[in-house]
Structure formats: structure tokens, C-alpha cells
């Protein structure tokens, strides 16, 4: 339990053991110690509800002004006051989903392979070293991944990868001859690199926790190494792997800085992965400092609200699914 990532999943993944007979010690009398804890906890609960409430209420004026078109519309058009402003969050929502989806596909495939390799192919001595390294990498702040993307990858796309795509047969027709260095795909790839250590840190533990007896039983029945991994190890660890996926996905959803640097921050209807776009979180960071007038900030809070609902929905969904799968696993 020494690293942040495993600690995060622990409540969902492996609930602390409840011991029968260990009753709440406060049932008899509440001393100052008890009261302190209760006050602190109430304070936190208050902060949490205030957190949700303030983002909700701050965004109300935008919904009032724009109606549902705030969610379904496209465009970000603060006006000079002569006409009503028009804001639509659809581009940002699609951008968020698109970048996260691409990123999670890459991360899960590569990450699961990596975890299997770490657990089953790597010599035991190397295993702890690699594990520690992965956990350290998971702690690297996202802005560092962001500068790598914008200062190393984007110029490479611009000068090498883009021209190469255009030189392919038919490439010009599909990609044009001038690609921007930044794109939704670039943002998604950097996101994948960024959430990979987070995913591996957990999936490695999950796979490592699969009982050895199962593996040995499968091998002794004549299954090949891969059959064992595919039919025995992965299904056994699926609950944990699912938890790891949803955690990594949550991180991709909310990632602000890397996407703001790499996606280009433009609001438009071309959702091609090689085109520029933006995500909810990145758009807030891009616009916040420059926002003018009385209606732009509420609209940005509305983007925050949508992001919050998406992330809460994700978290509730994953908790539910993990709980259901666990129940099913226990029943069988």
C-alpha cells in the first residue's frame, strides 16, 4: 500500500476487511476526540457538497441563456454585445470522448501485455525494479508529458510523419499536404503514454495476485503458456483489470494540461483524429484566463459541470460493475 495508485483503487477493489464484533467505539460516550473526528468529517462532507454545488450553480446562468443547445450546439462565440453570445459544448464533449477512447484502447492493450510480461516472463529479481519504476513514472506530472508532446512529438509529426502520410499513395487525398503538428490523435497518444504507468501499476498487482495454483493447474493440464494467461489469468483478474481501466479512463477524461497543449484548442466540427480539436478540461484551461463579459465564465463552468457529471458517472458505473462482478465471482 505504498503508492498512490494502488491506494486509490483499494477502496473499490479490495474493501478493508470488516471484522465482526469490532463496533464503533463511540456508542457509549463521545469525548472531545470523537467530536473532533465528527466535526472534521462533517467539514469534509460540506466541502464536497459545496464543491458540487458551486460548480452547478455557477453554470446555471449559461444553461438559462443557452438552453439545451449549450450541450448539443457547436461553437464558442462571445460577441461584442450587439448580438447574444452563443456557446455550444458538443465539440469539447466529442473531443473528450474521442481522445480518451483512443488513449484507453492503446493503454489497455499495451498495458495488459506489459503486466503479463512483467509477472510471467521477467526474472523475479527484475520484477520489483520494474514495478518501482512503473510506479515512479505514474507519479510524473502531466505537464511533463505535455511538454514532451509539444516540443518533441508535434515537430516530428509536422516535419516527418505528416509529409510521410502525404507521400503515401492516395495520402494527399485523405490527409491533404499540410498537417498541423497538433491534433486530437497526438493528444490521445500522449494521453495513452501518460495513463500507461497508472494502468500498469494496478494491473501488474492484479495479475500478480492471481493464485499460482491456478496457473500451475492450467499448465499441468497441457495448456500452453498463452492459453493459461488468456483463459485463466486474465478472467480471474478481470475485476481488478476493469478497475484499473476505469481509473485510467477517469484520468484521461480529466486531463487538462497535456490536451490543452496538444489538441490545438479549436472549436470546430471536423472530428477527424488528425484534425485539431479540444476537450472539456483543456478548453476550460485555454479560455479561462482570457474570458470576457458576464456570460463566458458561466459557460466555462457549464463545461466543468458536464465534465464532473461524466467523471462521476464513470466512477459510479465502475463501482457498480466491480461490485456485481465480484458478487458473481463469489457465487460461482
Amino acid at each position, binding site marked *: 500500500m505504498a503508492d498512490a495508485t494502488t491506494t486509490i483503487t483499494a477502496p473499490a477493489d479490495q474493501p478493508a476487511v470488516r471484522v465482526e464484533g469490532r463496533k464503533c467505539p463511540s456508542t457509549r460516550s463521545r469525548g472531545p476526540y470523537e467530536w473532533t473526528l465528527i466535526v472534521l468529517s462533517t467539514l469534509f462532507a460540506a466541502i464536497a457538497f459545496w464543491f458540487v454545488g458551486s460548480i452547478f450553480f455557477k453554470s446555471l446562468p449559461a444553461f438559462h441563456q443557452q438552453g439545451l443547445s449549450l450541450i448539443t450546439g*457547436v*461553437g*464558442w*462565440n*462571445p*460577441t*461584442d*454585445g*450587439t*448580438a447574444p453570445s*452563443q456557446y455550444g459544448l458538443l465539440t469539447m464533449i466529442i473531443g473528450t470522448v474521442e481522445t480518451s477512447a483512443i488513449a484507453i484502447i492503446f493503454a489497455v492493450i499495451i498495458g495488459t501485455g506489459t503486466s503479463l510480461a512483467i509477472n510471467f516472463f521477467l526474472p523475479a529479481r527484475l520484477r520489483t525494479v520494474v514495478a518501482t519504476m512503473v510506479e515512479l513514472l505514474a507519479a510524473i506530472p502531466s505537464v511533463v508529458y505535455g511538454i514532451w508532446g509539444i516540443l518533441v512529438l508535434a*515537430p516530428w509529426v*509536422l*516535419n516527418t510523419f505528416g509529409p510521410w502520410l502525404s507521400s503515401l499513395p492516395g495520402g*494527399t487525398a485523405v490527409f*491533404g*499536404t*499540410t*498537417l*498541423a*503538428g*497538433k491534433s486530437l490523435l497526438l493528444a490521445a497518444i500522449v494521453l495513452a503514454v501518460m495513463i500507461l504507468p497508472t494502468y500498469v501499476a494496478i494491473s501488474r498487482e492484479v495479475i500478480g495476485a492471481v493464485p499460482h495454483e491456478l496457473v500451475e493447474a492450467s499448465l499441468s493440464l497441457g495448456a500452453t503458456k498463452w492459453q493459461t494467461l488468456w483463459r485463466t489469468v486474465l478472467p480471474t483478474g478481470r475485476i481488478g483489470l476493469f478497475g484499473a481501466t476505469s481509473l485510467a479512463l477517469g484520468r484521461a477524461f480529466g486531463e487538462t494540461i497535456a490536451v490543452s497543449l496538444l489538441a*490545438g*484548442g*479549436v*472549436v*470546430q*466540427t*471536423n472530428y477527424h483524429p488528425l*484534425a*485539431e480539436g*479540444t476537450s472539456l478540461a483543456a478548453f476550460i484551461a*485555454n*479560455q479561462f*484566463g*482570457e*474570458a*470576457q*463579459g*458576464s456570460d*463566458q*465564465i458561466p459557460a466555462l463552468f457549464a463545461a466543468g459541470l458536464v465534465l464532473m457529471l461524466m467523471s462521476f458517472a464513470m466512477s459510479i458505473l465502475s463501482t457498480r460493475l466491480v461490485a456485481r462482478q465480484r458478487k458473481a465471482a463469489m457465487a460461482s
Partner: protein
Amino acid sequence: MKNIRSVAARAAAGAAAVSVLLGSVAGAAATQGSGAKGDIDLAVPAGATLAVGGSSFSAPLYTYFTTSSSAGAYKPTHSVTFGTDSAAGSGDGRTKVTAGTYTIGFSDQPMDATAGTLPTGTHAGDLANYVQVPWALGGAVVGYHLAGVSNLKLSASVITQIYNGKITSWNDDQIAALNHGVTLPNKTILVCYRNASSGTTYLFTDYLAKATQGRTPSGASGSVMEGTGKLWGATNVSGESNNAAMANDLANTDGSIGYLEYSYVLANPGKIQAAKLQDAAGTYIAPSLTNIAAAATAAAKTISASNFSITYLASGKTAVWPLATYTWAILAKNQTNAANGELAVKFLDYATQGGQKFAGANGFVALPTAVQKADRVALLTVKSGTKVLLTQKA
């Protein structure tokens, strides 16, 4: 006369934006640097700090003045600390000066209720608390990067169509028609625009709107815009956070087009070309300090916070650059920190008076004398409590 009345009304309302009637202001004019009694004393209290930022359009000039190693740096007797943030845009300048983060906020548009340039939380009534001075004169250009092609001529209509995705390739017939004898490559155009509130965008769309009789930037209700704006129709686009980022992408991307402040082109010789645009008579001209300066001379006689645009106003005049603008400095009329406030006004006085002789080397045009005079009058109204901060030599 309407302008004069509006100036009077503004003054009566207590708004402190400078209103300059070119040629008719008799201000506290004084030349810089003679050290004579009565001159502005540029010395400031020790330990003063000055946080400035905003407009990336004027950033080349104000960072030049705040940089101790440059020849034209502001050098008061005591050492001062500058905090400059050049990674932003005009909206940032206005927001942070009203929030108090910046002592001076730079913006290409002054704050004005009707223009929609009031930061969140600021109301029309609050404008009386700020002094807004036009402190530099510069021009934007339409920049492009196209290997082997220079001196490209572009009309406002063609630019509009490029930005709306109607023209997507450099060898489009309409571009070719304007540029006889130029071999245009078959290359997709990468359309670069600013992705947040930007004074340069305002200048650019204002020009397009006026030059094409309001049929820009996109569709029927297209109007001047400062933000990310209505959807540009173009789909092969790149969003830029400031002039610097725009210059960066233009310099590195063959096939790109964008709009940016003139000096960024000067600083990237050979990498970014400035397109020739039409003056009011329809002649194609390349940007130069001379024709940017001509814009100011040829413009309307009045500039104020609500009427400051000099773009394309010099109707009928030839050799006038269509994308010229004053750019503004905004500061609170009542400075809470006297030392920092004193540094701010003295810095601005230097920037608008003695410092103007360095404007040309940085891609800007020296302010007309009348504007300089009006700026000083305005700066003299900045106080800390009751103390006037722009002090004179005893």
C-alpha cells in the same frame, strides 16, 4: 462635433480613457531626457515591482522596455523588478489588471461596455476607475509560409474564403488570378487562428468585415469578433494561444497562413512572409513602418476608448496599411501601492515618450505627438490616495 460631445460626456461621467483630439490637445508637453526642472522625474522608490502582461501584439515592445539588457530598457535610478507575461492575449491583460494581478494590463482594445471587452465582474460604471492610454502604434499582417513563394498578393475576399474553407489549396484559381506569373504549389492550406480572446483577431476580422462589406467572417451574421468566434468554415486548422505561438507555427509549417503582429515577421526573416494587401485605393502594398504610420495620420481625428479603430478608416488614401492599430495600456486610477503605482506610471510615461524612439527597431511606429501629450495628461490623473504619482523634477 459628435465626437467632441462624446468626449465631453465621457469626461463628465468620469471615465478616464484618453480621448485625443489629434492636433488640438495642449497638454503638459515636455521633451524627455533634458533633466531640466519641471521634467518628469523617472526615479522611483527602491524595491518597487511591476507586473505587466496581456496583449501578445504589443509584447515585443513592452518586453523590450522591461528587459534590462536592451538598449532602450527603462532604467530608473533604483533597480526595479518586472514581472512580464508574454504568453497571453489582450483578454488576459484586461482581466488581470481589473483583478489586480497586473499593475498594467496591455490590450489591443480598451475596455468598453458596448464593445463587449469588459472582463467578467467589471461593469460599465467601473470604467471610471481606470486610465486607458494608447501607448503604441503597430500593424498586423497576414502571414504565410509557402516554400518558394514570396510577395503573394491576397484580397480580403480571398482571405475570407480561405478562412471559411471555400479555398483550400494554394494553387486555387482565385489566388492564381491575383498573382500572375507566380508558380503556386498544389498544397493544402493550413489555416491558423487564435483560439482565445485576441486583439489581433479583432483587428483581423474588423479589417475583413470592412473590406468585404460585412460578409465575413462566416456566413450571414458574421461580424467582428475577438474570441474564438463563430465557426470559421475552414477544417484544416490550427489553434494558436498567442502571437508567439502563431509565429512559431507559421515559421515551422510550410503551407500555413495566419495573422500576426508585424514584428513577429521581422523576427522570423525568410520563414514567415507577409502577404501584400490592398489599400483603400485597391493597390497591393507590402506592410512597412511607413504605411502603418500613414494609417494613424490618415485615420479619423479622434481616438477614444469607444472610438479608437484606425483600421481601414483612411478611405480613399493610398499607401495606407489596412491593419494598423493603437494598442492600449490599462491601469487603475487609484493605485493601492504607491511605490508600485509610481513605477507603473513612470514606466508608461517613459514608454510613451522617450521610449518611442525605439519603436521602429521593434516593428512599431512612433506615436504622434498629440497622442503622446494626451497620454501624459491621462497618466497625471493616476494617484495613490491624493498623491499624484507622475512626479516632476524639483
